[in-house]
């Protein structure tokens, strides 16, 4: 039985004329043990999909079963319990509670489960050892580097032994070295049998995934299996053939990824690829320098 089964799931925000279709009849099945990367331009519904799968949001229509249980219409308290017991969240901005120590942060999900204080601190400590920052136990989150903070967040996501880990751009706020560290850690967790779902803008990171799902305007438009250690075929196009976008594209908010999507006609700028680099920062840097030049 699949871990996640989405069947024509839609999510509508707002009412009447102001309504937006954030998720348009998405159908997706994810088996246990998959390491899925979700890619797509901003506003394509990646985060909404994550929120729906993570039970932070209820779908407007459609069927959704998690681990064999129909969870589309759960009450807030029930979905909180499912989140607590089966899902671990990792966020782009780490989302550690600033006033608690790293150890207390990691132990927090256990507290909501009702584990005794000494037990949960011990478990949290073990988890921090596993992610390699046990020596930072009593630091406050503000005293950690970005990579360390994300490791602590991963420890917090893992501490309840969840079946599913959802990471919304886990490397979005990290430099490349820290990104690697975090992704290696996720890969290690994946090896122990966990199912991981992560959103990324960085095609390079699809190396870690076993499957890549592309989204656009709330629809899942492409879904491919990929070998571990290799950049996914579609993502590779973005990475190697389109080093950057034109300035007009930048102003219009069109990313390279969007233009590289298979069923869209791509407009190629007449520019030679320079060095291999990650897509997103390049775009930003280019546009800045372009403006400065003006």
């Amino acid at each position, binding site marked *: 039985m699949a871990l996640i089964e989405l069947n024509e799931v839609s999510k509508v925000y707002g009412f009447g004329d102001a309504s937006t279709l954030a998720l348009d009849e998405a159908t997706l099945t994810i088996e246990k043990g998959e390491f899925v990367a979700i890619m797509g331009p901003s506003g394509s519904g990646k985060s909404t999909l994550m*929120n729906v799968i*993570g039970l*932070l*949001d209820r779908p407007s229509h459609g069927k959704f079963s998690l681990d064999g249980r129909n969870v589309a219409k759960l009450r*807030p*308290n029930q979905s*909180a*319990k499912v*989140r*607590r*017991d089966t899902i671990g*969240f990792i*966020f782009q901005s780490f*989302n*550690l*509670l600033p*006033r*608690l120590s790293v150890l207390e942060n990691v132990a*927090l*999900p256990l*507290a*909501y*489960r*009702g*584990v*005794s*204080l000494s037990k*949960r601190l011990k478990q949290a400590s073990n988890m921090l050892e596993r992610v390699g920052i046990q020596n930072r136990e009593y630091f406050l989150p503000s005293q950690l580097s970005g990579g360390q903070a994300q490791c602590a967040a991963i420890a*917090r*996501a893992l501490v*309840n032994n969840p079946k599913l880990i959802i990471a919304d751009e886990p490397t979005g706020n990290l430099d490349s070295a820290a990104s690697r560290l975090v992704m290696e850690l996720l890969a290690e967790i994946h090896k122990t049998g966990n199912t991981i779902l992560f959103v990324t803008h960085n095609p390079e990171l699809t190396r870690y995934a076993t499957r890549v799902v592309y989204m656009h305007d709330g629809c899942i438009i492409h879904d491919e299996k990929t070998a571990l250690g290799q950049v996914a075929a579609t993502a590779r196009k973005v990475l190697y053939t389109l080093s950057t976008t034109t300035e007009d594209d930048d102003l219009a908010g069109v990313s390279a990824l969007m233009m590289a999507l298979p069923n869209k006609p791509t407009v190629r700028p007449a520019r030679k690829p320079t060095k291999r680099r990650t897509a997103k920062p390049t775009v930003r840097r280019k546009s800045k320098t372009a403006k400065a030049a003006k």
Partner: protein
Amino acid sequence: MRSLTRGHVKAGFDSVRGAKWRNFWTMLGIIIGVASVITIVSIGEGVKQQISQQINHVGKNVITVRPGTIRTNSTQSKSDFSVLSGLSITGSLRDTDVKTVADNKTISASAPLAAVSTDVKGDHATFNNTFVIGTSPDLPELINQKLAYGVFLSVDDEGMNAAVLGTTIASQLFDTDVPLGHSFKIHGEEFVVRGIFDDFGSTPLSDDANYNNSIFIPYDVAQRITKNTAVVYEILAKTESASAVSPTLSSLQKSIKKNHGDQNDFSVLRAEQSLAARSNVLSLLTNLISGVAAISLLVGGIGIMNVMLVSVAERMHEIGIRKAIGATNRQIMSQFMIESSLLSLSGGVIGVIVALIFDGLMRFFTNLRPVISWQVVLLAFGVSLAVGIIFGTIPALKAARKDPIEALRSQL
């Protein structure tokens, strides 16, 4: 679940400590409310205790005659307010009443108390508004008071310019420690000090003057120097035995009524009654003022609610995180309830401490002896906790019902 509560309590303390000043101002309403309620109740309680000590001091078989009608609980007054108005003096006692009481067969000792308001000239200074009381030789026996030095006025002193002083006025009038035999002037006449009273126990908030500050002279001398205008504000009388009190009471009632032309413009009271009237007024005042103070508790509670609402808005992101990692609505709610309860409870604790300080200051600077009972302290804690819970509910509900996505999205 217990360990989670402990975590919430710790987190609550952290957040109370985190914004010290803001929380102090928030708690101020509770602090003032709790401190004032405790202080007022303790003053009332202390005065009541002092009054009941006075009853024992005066003795059970002492009868008091006063001008005006004083309604007490024994006559089933309809509301407490009649007690207040009852204390205003409407009639007066006359010379004949003093004689009537003194001549009653079952009465063994009696003393009028006649106020002479006049200037008193001592060694150095003139004191105006000193309380000069014309009375009879029986007074020390009636009020169970001993003399520190000398003797009280005797029957032989009638018509003589002799005086007995309270301790305070004695030390103010003269340089010497024991001014027996010294003389001073009342109403231009020379008076000789016969004796000095022991220190009177305090008579707080009572309508009696402070006897420590009084000068006692013979009743007939008082009437003579004032040309019979000294006001008899009280006649004390003592029966031979406690069992004779009731019949004496009714016979006095009858004979004084005859003196007053069949008018009931006076009261004949037992010791308990005369003091009960006073303590009734006192409890009424205590209740009124405590009620006013309780309003400040309410205002304090509203202040706490506002701060908690701000705190919930400020920590929306935190609420989102907690919900994302599996906190149920109830767990979020209890977290904020615990925090607001802690806030108001610490206000209560500080309020009790402030009340204790006030208590000490009052004992030091006034003759009040406030009594802070543990029941009042417990009640104060209970009320401040209740305020925290009641006014914490709305912010906590707001926090608990927040949509997790919306909460997560709200950055500082």
